[in-house]
């Protein structure tokens, strides 16, 4: 077989079982693709030795057992936010330079237990704070897509920009991502791939470098909805090491992919029609609505009245939690420590270490978080934001109580933008990237981005489906219907 790196998880799994290829061959094809894709800056730590050793074990397992798990032998990339034992895990930050975890994150451990092969670690915004992968210590990850023949480099989105770029450019069969405000779904939409953030609590957060603990969730970034179902099943499940992980049975998500949406009620929230939204996004949305209707779904206009307040609430809650979570980077236990001057005490060590180790966006968010939690402002900002969050969640509960099965929205307010184009914009302009995705994190719901079209310049655009809590199986099946109807097969022309 040729171009093995271009396969998806399901195709590769089936090829392995038919004896048409081996994990070694799949892995070597991906390693060669990675070798030739330095210009994308997607993989930032390469682990070919680990990959080939895992591939050999997977081939042996596939040979000896008919019952090998679905992910067995499939080469994937791991976002740098996941701690991987003995392998650099920096969260895209200088402050974790040289950190080699002594433990494995639960999600990556589950993937390895399933026989998956790790090709390396993937670029990301520093501490997952960003929407363009431009805050990374490794430099920008680059989108394999370009605006027609224009050679200007575009962002793959963020924070899981390296994951998105790597999957879209066929450097791996799939990748892990994490999503705090849209960091799986926005980059997936910007690169023409599929990304799902499961219900809060579906995947263990243990061993994932924490950003905002009440919002963070891991999820798969894949070449198809079927692949997302396969990989999601492998990473879900209860973990005693994460007290917020849910002790619920994990369904067979792939078996649930009927694509039958007849009689399903799909909500269209009027508040997601934003002022100044490009007409191409509106047209994409209308096309998606028509596709679901043609497939037999019932389209229902709904209202989520507090949508407008999701981003401001997020920009209180996420920085507040980040300021607390990132207090651990003090130069004492791991990572970077600043060189001290004669007479510097422990306070100078903290202050210099954190000034050198954190980039500007992380510093900004830690300080905003510190401010909204400080005496005198805690009620006015933090508690108010948490109360608004209750109302945002209630908006969704109300429409689900009215029988809505899932909600269809655009995934992003635009196609991928140019790297550096937002450099002079104020931080709030960048935050608006997450306007359609952040509500889902605040409400703890599952959401999936599916590529369904292209803009005039040929860039991919995605739609988002939002599901009921814990009903990822139903959500994936609806996404499968959307994928079938949209028939998105475009790939970026290889220039790298």
């Amino acid at each position: 077989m040729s171009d093995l790196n271009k396969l998806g998880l399901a195709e590769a799994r089936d090829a392995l079982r038919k004896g048409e290829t081996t994990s070694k061959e799949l892995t070597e094809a991906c390693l060669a693709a990675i070798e030739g894709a330095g210009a994308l800056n997607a993989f930032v730590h390469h682990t070919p030795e680990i990959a080939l050793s895992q591939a050999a074990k997977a081939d042996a397992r596939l040979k000896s057992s008919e019952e090998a798990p679905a992910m067995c032998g499939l080469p994937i990339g791991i976002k740098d936010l996941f701690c991987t034992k003995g392998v650099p895990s920096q969260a895209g930050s200088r402050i974790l330079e040289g950190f080699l975890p002594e433990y494995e994150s639960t999600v990556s451990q589950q993937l390895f237990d399933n026989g998956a092969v790790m090709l390396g670690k993937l670029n990301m915004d520093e501490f997952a704070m960003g929407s363009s992968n431009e805050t990374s210590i490794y430099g920008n990850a680059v989108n394999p897509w370009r605006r027609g023949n224009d050679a200007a480099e575009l962002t793959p989105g963020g924070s899981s920009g390296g994951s998105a770029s790597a999957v879209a450019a066929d450097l791996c069969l799939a990748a892990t991502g994490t999503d705090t405000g849209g960091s799986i779904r926005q980059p997936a939409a910007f690169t023409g791939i599929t990304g799902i953030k499961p219900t809060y609590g579906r995947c263990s957060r243990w061993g994932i470098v924490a950003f905002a603990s009440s919002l963070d969730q891991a999820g798969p970034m894949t070449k198809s909805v079927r692949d997302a179902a396969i990989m999601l099943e492998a990473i879900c499940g209860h973990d005693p090491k994460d007290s917020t992980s849910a002790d619920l049975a994990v369904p067979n998500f792939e078996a649930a992919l009927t694509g039958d949406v007849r009689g399903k009620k799909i909500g269209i929230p009027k508040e997601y029609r934003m002022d100044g939204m490009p007409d191409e996004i509106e047209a994409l949305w209308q096309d998606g609505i028509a596709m679901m209707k043609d497939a037999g779904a019932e389209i229902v206009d709904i209202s989520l009245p507090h949508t407008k307040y999701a981003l401001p609430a997020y920009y209180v809650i996420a920085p507040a939690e980040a300021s607390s979570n990132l207090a651990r980077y003090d130069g004492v236990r791991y990572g970077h420590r600043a060189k001290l001057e004669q007479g510097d005490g422990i306070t100078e060590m903290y202050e210099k270490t954190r000034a050198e180790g954190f980039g500007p966006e992380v510093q900004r968010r830690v300080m905003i978080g510190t401010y909204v939690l400080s005496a005198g402002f805690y009620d006015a900002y933090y508690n108010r934001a948490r109360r608004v969050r209750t109302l945002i969640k209630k908006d969704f509960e109300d429409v689900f109580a009215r029988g809505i099965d899932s909600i269809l929205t655009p995934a992003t307010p635009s196609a991928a933008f140019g790297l550096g184009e937002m450099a002079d914009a104020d931080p709030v302009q960048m935050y608006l990237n997450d306007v359609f995705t952040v509500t889902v994190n605040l409400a703890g719901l599952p959401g999936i981005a599916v590529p369904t079209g292209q803009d005039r310049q040929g860039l991919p655009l995605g739609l988002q489906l939002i599901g009921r809590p814990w009903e990822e199986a139903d959500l994936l099946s609806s996404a499968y219907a959307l994928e079938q109807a949209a028939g998105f097969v475009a790939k970026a022309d290889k220039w790298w």
Partner: protein
Amino acid sequence: MAIDENTAARVAKLARIKVAPESLGALAGEFNGILGFIEQLNEVDIEGVEPMTSVTPQVLKRRVDEVTDGDQQGAVLKNAPDAREGFFAVPKVVE
């Protein structure tokens, strides 16, 4: 409320991030931009609304109160920038 340079300096101190005095003005400006965006929350009627503590209602699981891990001094100290004689080493804290 507008943040001035003094407030920016106080926040930087609380966050234990060294900020050069000449950068405080720009930092205060950025804070004001973000806080201005956040001010929208004041439009929302939150009377009688509870602050969210857990997004998915769940009862925390209990387990037997027993030691489940330990004896990992080497692993714990492995990544320390400065570890000596089985401890993390830091600049002098108490004179």
